[in-house]
């Protein structure tokens, strides 16, 4: 299987200039961190994502997951490491090549939608195509097609402010699909939504993934969401990947105490559900277990 995303030894250190970061001297770097001279947001992260896979990065706020996803698009300039997406060496692209890469190879969905408030829904969806100078008629046709894909037919001429959060994110997803990129990067796309709507959107995303078979790199702080959507997931903490594996692997065999604590509740819920299926006799035993 071909790799859609391949990241090797990726670092992002805020604070000192790129050339002054002592990546080869760990003690010196940790001293700088202690003195708050340097903040390591992404620490030596390597992973690869197969084409058509949904890869979830799960971590709490401050774990560096948002920085990581921004590094992939070079919205944040990585300090060191190599990024290969869709066969292109992203880390070494020139400005013009990077623009082309962003227009064609990957698209991003943002937590707070990132829609243009002064443009209509239709113009927002066709924004990427507009940047590529696709003729008006063609791009509007494509945008209408996508609006119906995400269930927003007839909302063409509304402005983002007229829409609910869930609908705005649908616009965000339609915009990402507009130029039909092989890779989608999603930065906590459903975090700001009500639980019911979030659930609905997650299900729609699964459908969409089955239909289009795009590679999806998905960032979330919600373990449930990660487990439901991810083919594989990585648990991130303090800038590093603590564990990478399928949701089941992580649940059954947590790599360390941090991950174990994280998945504990989830595990108990699973066990409870399992035992409930077995029958009433076991329930007594479960309550004893918990106490």
């Amino acid at each position, binding site marked *: 299987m071909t790799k859609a995303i391949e990241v090797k030894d990726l670092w992002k250190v805020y604070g000192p200039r790129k050339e002054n970061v002592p990546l080869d001297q760990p003690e010196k770097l940790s001293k700088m961190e202690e003195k708050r001279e340097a903040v390591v947001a992404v620490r030596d992260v390597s992973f690869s994502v197969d084409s058509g896979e949904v890869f979830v990065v799960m971590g709490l706020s401050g774990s560096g997951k948002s920085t990581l996803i*921004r590094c992939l*698009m070079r*919205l944040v300039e990585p300090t060191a490491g190599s990024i290969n997406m869709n066969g292109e060496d992203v880390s070494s692209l020139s400005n013009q090549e990077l*623009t*082309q*890469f*962003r*227009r*064609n190879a990957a*698209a*991003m969905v*943002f937590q*707070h939608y*990132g*829609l*243009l*408030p*002064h443009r209509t829904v239709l113009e927002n969806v066709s*924004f*990427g195509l*507009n*940047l*590529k100078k696709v003729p008006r008629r063609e791009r509007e046709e494509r945008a209408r097609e996508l609006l119906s894909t995400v269930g927003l037919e007839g909302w063409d001429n509304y*402005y983002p*402010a*007229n829409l609910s959060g869930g609908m705005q994110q649908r616009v965000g997803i339609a*915009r990402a699909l507009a130029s039909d990129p092989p890779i989608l990067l999603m930065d906590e796309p459903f975090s700001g939504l009500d639980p019911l709507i979030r659930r609905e959107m997650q299900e729609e995303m699964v459908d969409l993934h089955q239909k289009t078979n795009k590679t999806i790199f998905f960032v979330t702080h919600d373990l449930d969401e990660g487990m439901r959507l991810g083919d594989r997931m990585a648990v991130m903490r303090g800038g590093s990947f603590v564990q990478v594996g399928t949701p089941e692997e992580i649940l059954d065999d947590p790599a360390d105490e941090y991950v174990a604590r994280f998945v504990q509740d989830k595990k108990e819920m699973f066990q409870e559900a399992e035992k409930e299926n077995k029958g009433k006799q076991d329930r007594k035993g479960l309550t004893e277990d918990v106490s």
Partner: protein
Amino acid sequence: MFPDAWEFSIARWINDFTNWLLTTFSAFFDALSGIILSLLLNIHSGLETIPWWIYILAIALTAFFTTKKIGLTIVLSILPVIVGLFGLWDLAIETIAIVLTAVVIAIIIGIPLGVIMAEFKRMEGLGRPILDAMQTMPSFVYLIPTMMLFGLGKVPAVLATVIYAVPPVIRLTNLGLRQVSQEVQEAALAYGATRFQLLKEVRIPLAMPSILAGVNQTTMMALAMVVIASMIGGGGLGYEVLVSINRIDVGRGFEAGISVVILAIVIDRLTQGFAKRFEPPSN
């Protein structure tokens, strides 16, 4: 007493420098002067040919369609009539011509400078102290260099007004561009916007309310300068005020003063209403 022996004057060098400027660049100054004068005269004669009631009608319509308030519309359309009743209509038109010319020039200079300051951090560092100096400088001081280079008349009056009035539009263009939400800018970049596209498609449209607020303030400052500019031949309502001061004719000065205030109120409300139309829709 400050020691006499330390006395040191730069007045002579400045005079020499101005003379040198004048003789060396006389062709340039003549050309610039010609352009500004023809712009001013065209605007003035254009404004003069419009009958008074068209102004009232235009003000009423713009006021109504931008603010949708009937009371405000009536007040704004009656105010200019008072200027006419004082017998100052033609002078008011002359003043508007000078203000309009100055504002047009200020916008042509100011908006690009504001954009440059927002795009390049260094330029902001350089521009800020200059703008601060321009705004704290007493406005009379502007009369001196413009008068030296262009003599007396309408052109130096317009130029002094431009120098005095241009800072707000530069500042608010810069500020507006910098205040555009980072998230929206990031999204635009993620979809492959070039720096120019980001500016044209996202930053300038979203900064428009701020830029127009700058234009509004620039217009107000230009109006405030007309009385001062009349000292070097600006004419219009300002000259009327100047004459009244010289003759200690309080009543006549008051009429002219009120007329300036009326112009200010009407222009301010109209441009503010106009600026609101550029705000992106919100809940």
